[in-house]
């Protein structure tokens, strides 16, 4: 894929930029029920070792790096090495200690449980 957006020649520039991974925004689905917020993110090719999920002060950051193992010369290449990055705001009511993440078939599934205090409560009406 052509990542080059410069039409102008680059010879004139003093320092050539080193090659960096293109950043992509992974597509996500977000669901919620009374107990948790559930996030799915498509990140094909990202291994467990190259994936990090950080929650800090109400900001959730998902970062995955894909490096393809290839052999030979490419006849065509529609996808390549990439950095998947996406940030979200999460409510303070998330129980950060209980967050858990699964990675299967290139899909990240992130469970963000709500803290007990944030769950809806049924109030029982006492009879006299």
């Amino acid at each position, binding site marked *: 894929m052509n990542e080059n*957006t410069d039409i102008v020649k680059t010879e004139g520039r003093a320092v050539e930029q080193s090659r960096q991974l293109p950043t992509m925004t992974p*597509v996500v689905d977000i669901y*919620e029920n009374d107990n948790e917020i559930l996030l799915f993110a*498509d990140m*094909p090719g*990202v291994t467990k070792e190259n994936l990090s999920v950080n929650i800090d002060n109400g900001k959730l950051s998902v970062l995955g790096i894909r490096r393809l193992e*290839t052999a030979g010369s490419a006849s065509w290449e529609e*996808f390549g090495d990439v950095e998947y990055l996406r940030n979200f705001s999460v409510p303070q009511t998330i129980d950060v200690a209980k967050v858990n993440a699964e990675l299967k*078939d*290139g899909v990240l599934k992130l469970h963000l449980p709500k803290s007990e205090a944030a769950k809806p409560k049924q109030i029982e009406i006492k009879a006299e």
Partner: protein
Amino acid sequence: MWTTVSDLDRMFGSMDLLRSRMNRMLLDYDRFYGRGGGWAVTATEPLTNLYDAGDSLEVKAEVPGMAREDVNIKVQGNYLEISGTRKSDTPEGYKAHREERDTETSFTRSFTLPSEEINTEKVSASLKNGILTITLPKTEAAKPKQVTIN
């Protein structure tokens, strides 16, 4: 003469600016930007790569959310067909806030491989982390030969 060149440069410079602005506009509008040159439309077919390693060809495809049994591969001569069905993983009893992913879809993609000589008996495939890799060995006749000098 040199003024003309710098004029040209300036013109291209403003075209660059326009293009980057358009791209930024698209970035806000369509989250799938980033797949290609900025003008890409969302793909419903998986993206593929083809590599030629001399002895064999290798096809890679992005198939997130698909398991081994969801993908079918057919080879006939130098014709390769990949098809698959993605099962929806939408959880029950949840309220959806955002649904960008293309779950519950199916696709078929076919190729005519650049080498005529594929040893169809020895084609193998693996699926790892949502990336499908198909290795297609060439027949003996099509493999590169080492030539020794007498």
